[in-house]
């Protein structure tokens, strides 16, 4: 606050970060008022990749809306698929075969792994270290190949269907996934040795970008951002869906509230995702992957429906108002980084420019998901 008062006496200048800027990883624009190297006010400006998915939801039939889900968060698209599938299954009361649920969990967690891997590389790139990006992409490539073999696409997945999944997994996928987990597992301690314990990285992350748990609550921040502020909240545990209750995994929580805590949460989540995938592969039963009784014509009963899932960046929830026709009356997509970024303006006040950009990186932004 005193900084703001001081700055009114001194000369400030406005700096436009984005919409094309290496640190924003997409078309985000941040209007920054700076006092030397200090930020007086940083206001994110959204909408550069706004496509009005919510209106599309009102004009397309329930089935036609599927491809849109892959184009919101291009890094954890399968979790978004899961949200939509869950929403309609809740509305229509469709039972999903157990094998399909396990396939869903495996693919979602693989997707989360690759999202966190990409974030890891890109985040260190934000801090000026180029090399980890290449290592992370090397691993991520394996996941994309695995997912491509079952879903048919590498990024904008449209794999789930109401009452199951589009395609059964084959033995190649299962052995490939097991081999991949075996390969990735020793890599994570290596990343910690090479990157996390680096003195410069500690200097850049520890005690930088402090977000208290209460601030997270006021802004509705979720996911690793919330868990880095010491709140044990994960939709997979707190509002269990699919077969997550049958799987044994921990929710990593760090109480430091700084960028390092958010970094550590994501790194630990990768371990947990690997655990989930291994267990799910072991437990996966045989059987159909699509509900046989799933109705062909979808007309959910009138009313409001809500469904939340844990995407890689936090709570993704969908709310729809159905008027018992084959399209939605109103489709609302609540994307996690939209809320996570909304606290940036308050939290970045008085920060150094380089720290603010490191802080922004630690929020793990995906712009198309924010702009919808």
């Amino acid at each position, binding site marked *: 606050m005193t900084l703001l008062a001081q700055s009114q006496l001194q000369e400030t200048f406005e700096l436009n970060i984005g919409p094309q800027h290496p640190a924003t990883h997409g078309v985000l624009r941040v209007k920054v008022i700076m006092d030397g190297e200090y930020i007086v006010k940083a206001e994110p400006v959204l909408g550069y990749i706004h496509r009005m998915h919510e209106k599309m939801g009102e004009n397309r039939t329930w089935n036609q809306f599927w491809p849109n889900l892959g184009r919101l968060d291009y890094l954890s698209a399968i979790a978004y698929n899961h949200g939509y599938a869950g929403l309609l299954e809740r509305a229509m009361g469709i039972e999903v075969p157990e094998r399909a649920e396990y396939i869903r969990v495996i693919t979602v967690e693989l997707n989360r792994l690759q999202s966190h891997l990409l974030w890891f590389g890109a985040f260190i790139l934000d801090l000026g270290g180029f090399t980890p990006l290449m290592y992370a992409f090397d691993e991520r490539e394996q996941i994309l190949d695995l997912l491509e073999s079952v879903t048919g696409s590498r990024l904008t997945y449209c794999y789930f269907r109401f009452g199951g999944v589009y395609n059964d997994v084959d033995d190649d996928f299962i052995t490939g996934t097991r081999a991949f987990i075996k390969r990735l597992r020793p890599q994570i301690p290596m990343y910690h040795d090479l990157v996390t314990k680096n003195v410069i990285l500690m200097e850049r992350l520890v005690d930088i970008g402090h977000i208290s748990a209460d601030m997270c609550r006021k802004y*509705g921040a979720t996911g690793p951002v919330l868990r880095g502020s010491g709140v044990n909240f994960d939709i997979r545990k707190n509002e269990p869906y699919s077969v997550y209750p049958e799987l044994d995994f921990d929710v990593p929580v760090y109480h430091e509230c700084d960028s390092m805590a958010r970094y550590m949460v994501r790194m630990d989540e990768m371990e947990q995702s690997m655990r989930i995938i291994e267990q799910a592969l072991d437990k996966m039963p045989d059987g159909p992957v699509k509900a046989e009784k799933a109705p062909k014509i979808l007309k959910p009963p009138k*009313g409001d429906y809500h469904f939340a899932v844990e995407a890689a960046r936090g709570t993704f929830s969908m709310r729809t108002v159905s008027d018992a026709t084959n399209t939605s009356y109103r489709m609302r997509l609540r994307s996690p980084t939209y809320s996570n970024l*909304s606290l940036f303006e308050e939290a970045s006040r008085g920060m150094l420019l380089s720290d603010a950009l490191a802080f922004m990186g630690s929020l793990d932004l995906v712009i198309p998901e924010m702009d919808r």
Partner: protein
Amino acid sequence: MLASEGLPPQKEVVEEVQAAEEGEVDPKAKKKEEEKPRENGLLETDYAKRGFHLDVQVNPDQVVRSAEILDSEGMTMEMVTGVDWLKDGQFEIVYDYSFTGGELFRVVVRCRVDREKPDVPTISEVFGGANWHERETWELFGINFVGHPQLERFLLPDDCDYYPLRKDFKL
């Protein structure tokens, strides 16, 4: 807590809604339901079917009070959105609240305003995160959040003069 604010629990409507879900209601009753919008009050809903536990409809002037109550309970605002009920000539503003951490309890607070004069007080004083959600709802529906610090174009271009999520918006 909300009941103390003079909101009556709505028993009958529950049955009606549940009956409608089961599809056992005859077309006449369905039509009757469509004709008149819901009255204000509390509604306990089935989580397994709806995805939320408590459905509250309030007057626009009770919106801030409801946010304050839910804030003091330690809930977080998940999203704010609007629904355009063109037939009723009304906008519905829907607020989703939930706990982050702790028990699983989701509350939906909704209020209806006249389509001609869509004014509703802002809750961005209570929940900072509502700022962006309300700004977006203003932009896409034209619902005026009275007292909002920054009702400017957000997702859409600065020069657009339409509200795309209104039902009378022609594609």
